């Protein structure tokens, strides 16, 4: 059983399980393991669970289980599944095709110039590693990704744009991310993916979950339009590596 498992009340209908105090992969693995165990338990007391960097927030029905009973229940789940911590069962990598630059990436020119890197170098660095999805939040389908290569770190816009397109791939400081829907925002936009990270007409509406990973695959502009066309016709199957 993880020794640093701690519980806090989050009102009379939720309990916060904290599995560590730092953002790191091992802690986030334990978060994912506990989250999956909570879902798998399909317990009548549990309404839903929200995994984050270091925590799982579990919404429950106090009339079915008290706070103390929930604590015992989750402690038991965590210890039973402790063996899974290294097994990484069911972790998936979603391949996100990205067309870098052009009108898809209006900030790429400035970043090339200021960082003294060629376009190809930026694309190679950005697409050369898998990014862990530590958690989701902010907007439906917004993924909080693990660290980017430091060479690409670049500050946000001082004045956020009023409109950023759905699928925009951006950089904010040392982070990279994807806008799942049209939104205002201050991230520097370097490319765009034609796939949908949030599609309410589908179940699940979001193709990934916390603990999965994202891999960016550079695509040429004609492929962007081809995939977009398939997405719009509902004929695109996201590429997932198990």
């Amino acid at each position: 059983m993880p020794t640093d498992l701690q519980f806090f009340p989050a009102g009379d209908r939720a309990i916060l399980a904290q599995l560590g105090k730092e953002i790191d992969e091992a802690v986030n693995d334990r978060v994912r393991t506990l989250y999956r165990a909570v879902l798998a338990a399909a317990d009548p007391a549990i309404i839903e669970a929200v995994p984050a960097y270091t925590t799982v927030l579990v919404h429950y029905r106090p009339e079915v289980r008290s706070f103390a009973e929930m604590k015992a229940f989750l402690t038991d789940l965590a210890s039973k599944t402790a063996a899974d911590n290294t097994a990484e069962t069911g972790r998936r990598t979603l391949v996100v095709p990205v067309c870098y630059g052009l009108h898809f990436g209006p900030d790429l020119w400035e970043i090339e110039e200021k960082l003294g890197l060629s376009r190809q170098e930026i694309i190679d660095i950005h697409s050369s590693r898998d990014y862990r999805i530590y958690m989701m939040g902010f907007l439906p389908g917004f993924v909080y990704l693990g660290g980017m290569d430091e060479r690409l770190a670049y500050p946000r816009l001082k004045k956020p744009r009023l409109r950023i397109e759905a699928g925009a791939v951006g950089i904010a400081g040392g982070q990279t991310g994807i806008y799942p829907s049209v939104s205002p925002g201050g991230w520097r936009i370097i490319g765009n993916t034609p796939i949908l990270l949030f599609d309410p007409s589908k179940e699940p509406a979001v193709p990934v979950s916390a603990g999965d990973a994202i891999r960016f695959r550079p695509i040429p502009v004609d492929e962007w339009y081809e995939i977009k066309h398939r997405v719009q016709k509902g004929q695109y199957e996201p590429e997932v590596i198990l």
Partner: protein
Amino acid sequence: MKIKVIAPGVLTTVQDAGRFGHQAAGIPEAGAMDRASLALANDLLGNPEDAAALELTVFGGTFEFDGEGTIALTGADMRPFLDGNRMAMDAAVSVQAGDRLELGSAAQGVRTYLAVSGGIDVPVVLGSRSTDWKSRLGGLEGRKLRAGDVLESGTDGASLRQTAAELVETQGSSWKQPILQRLAQATDPEGVTQIRFLFGPQDSMFGEEAKRTFTESIYTLSAACDRMGYRLEGAAVPSLNGTDIISEGICFGSIQVPANGQPIVMMADHQTTGGYAKIGTVLSEDLPLLAQLGPGKKIRFVPVCL
């Protein structure tokens, strides 16, 4: 029965008991702000308790019914007139084809629920009919209602989502008391409403003195109070070492304290995660009270134990 929107009021949306099971993907729960009044309205009509109704805010607007049915109004009293006659709150009332329901400004409370027999029938999106205007999900095209919109009432009384119905059903016994009565009981002669809360999850980031400040001060609801959150104004709650935390899931009722020490209570449309320390969480039974308070109203946080 059809419900035609003649005048939409200030902010009228379709809401049910909330969208559950998708917060892990960043999709908010949304749903009625005052779930006790929603449950009461549905109960009066024999609807499933999580059936969708219209949530009217501050100023109600005008609606016309096409067909016979039963309706109920709960929550804030917007001085409703049905076909020219004053309509009772918190009661099932029959309507005839062509009847007009006219509502004015809320004299007391902020949100009124207009329920119809069979519920408001809009498509179920991700398990709920609730409007999430920020994500443009649910309700009628994911937006607030406009003049000329026409809604249909549902035809069957069967619950779509037993889970959410159970949620409402199993709340405390005072849950179905008309909310304005509860509000009067919870408000002192100076107009300060007692809102009960539980400390946590991050109350340890605040010292004893800060906690005393929080529970002994009177907070005023600022102009920035909406379906996402209520920003309060009053004595600043100082933290011991900053109020930033590693982002984590938050609840309807979470009381965040940002760096300026002015608390923010997260309401129905709250984002699913947040990075501010939470000194406490409003008791679920008292969220309907808070939902009926608007800018300028005063509250005091009363700590309770589990």
